[in-house]
């Protein structure tokens, strides 16, 4: 009887110890499920070490097949090429904003622009904002906070980020599957 009780106690102790060991990483683990369209490529690009680092206002020659690490500026100190169209409180004065240009999209189609942190994404062509087609976001996903799809034409593209809580963000853009 005593032996059985000791075995039971040992089992319970081990279970609790295992629970404790597993609970910390489980709680810290990000959750990138629940996006309404695929973002596997974006997650891989965001996590890869080969991102292209650029300053706000940079011009890229073509569509990058990897993440762009974009250094933003204080929102109050920067004027975006195209007015974001959002309420001022949606962006906030104490946040960071910036943009980069792609000299030429090779072809028109539906593109997916993703952002690693909180903030607003805008796509602009010919000096005007392009209306988004659809959006998906997961605050619990550390790699991709949100992803927005736009129907874009071939030619120059401006990608704007506004209202980020952090100075450096990662952005990806690729043709949607």
């Amino acid at each position, binding site marked *: 009887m005593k032996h059985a009780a000791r075995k039971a106690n040992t089992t319970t102790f081990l*279970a609790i110890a295992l629970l404790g060991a597993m609970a910390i990483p489980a709680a810290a683990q990000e959750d990138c499920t629940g996006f*309404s369209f695929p973002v596997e490529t974006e997650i891989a690009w965001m996590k890869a070490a080969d991102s292209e680092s650029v300053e706000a206002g940079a011009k890229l020659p073509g569509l990058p097949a990897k993440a762009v690490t974009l250094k933003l500026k204080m929102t109050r100190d920067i004027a975006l090429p195209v007015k974001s169209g959002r309420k001022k*409180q949606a962006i906030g004065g104490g946040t960071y904003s910036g943009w980069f240009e792609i000299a030429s999209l090779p072809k028109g189609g539906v593109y997916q622009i993703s952002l690693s942190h909180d903030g607003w994404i805008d796509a602009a062509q010919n000096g005007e904002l392009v209306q988004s087609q659809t*959006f998906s976001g997961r605050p619990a996903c550390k*790699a991709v906070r949100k992803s927005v799809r736009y129907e874009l034409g071939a030619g120059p593209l401006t990608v704007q980020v506004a209202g980020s809580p952090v100075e450096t963000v990662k952005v990806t853009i690729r043709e949607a599957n």
Partner: protein
Amino acid sequence: MRRRPPRATARIAAALAGLTLATGLFPAAPLAQSTAQPSLGTLEKLGRALFGDRNLSANRRQSCVSCHSPDLAFTDPKELGKIEGAVSVGADGRSFGDRNSPSASYASFAPEFRISEGGEPVGGFFWDGRARTLEEQAGGPPLNPVEMGMPDKQSVVARLKENPRYVEAFPAFFGTGVLDDTEQAYAAMTKAIAVYERASDFAPFDSKYDRSLRGEAMLTGAEAMGRDLFFSPGRGNCGACHLSNGPGAAEKEVFSGFKYYNIGTPANRNVRALNGSKPGFVDVGLAANPAASGAGHDGKFRVPGLRNVAITGPYMHNGIFKELRTVLLFHQRLSLDGPRINPETGQPWDAPEVHANLAAGNLKAVPALSESENAALIAFLKTLTDKRHERLLD
């Protein structure tokens, strides 16, 4: 090294399984970063998918998220040029409503619409309480011609049937054949959306104010002064209309008593000029609600909650005021030495859109506050901002 006997291992597994069920710490599904099309395995997930589904609008360009963005406390982030964010644009890109899109955060805490024992309308959804429940509210925008613009419930259900995930999920949650019955299917859709709107995404209760109540944060001197003014019946007296849990600070307070008043908000002429309103149109508010109709309700609107109020302007039912300070001064305008000038126009306050039923007694009881007191009150109201939006505070 001794190997653990299989039975002991099995017992540990069983014990963990029990803990899984008891605590939910270990979900049955793996925590992998799969980003395949999401399972709609819970009603909340189904509701979230519906909330963000643009296919539920006539031209497939607008979802609930369009005017209730999670990135701005479930309000509309769009400024819309001359509209200045006062109201929202419809799916067609050119129709404008007449009322401000209220925040959907903490909306689920409103009680169902009812007439109190004293004969007073309380609770309900929309500015005029015309939706009795959150489910009824969720069913409104898809069919509103100046919002999502679907012609009828049948067309909405047809859109639901286009989505294989819905075709799988609806019968699983609501019974076989649910999508074959338009009324049942539409009610199921609104039920799922309402379940999502009751989720913690919408009501985290993690603002600085909440944290201060839990001893996790300390309000600054100005914030504490503003809090005291807010709750003081003799000074700010905000709690007279903006508390649901009785006087004094309480956890999970959403800062509305959910009653209806006419506080004399002027018509928003700018919006009326742009939204095609017929000349002479008057928004009578609660009086247009069939469940509360009567001249005694002309011009009354539901008291809004104040969670995230610092980032959810423009204010009032028609978005006429851009700044929170203006709203505070407007509430104080009828007191003996209250402000007589609208700081946004530099002119005297415009006349109420509806003169009848003006809550003049209540408004005269709001004392005029000093500039520093108003600043403190604003500092306090900023502490009602959910943690994830605090970066937006200036």
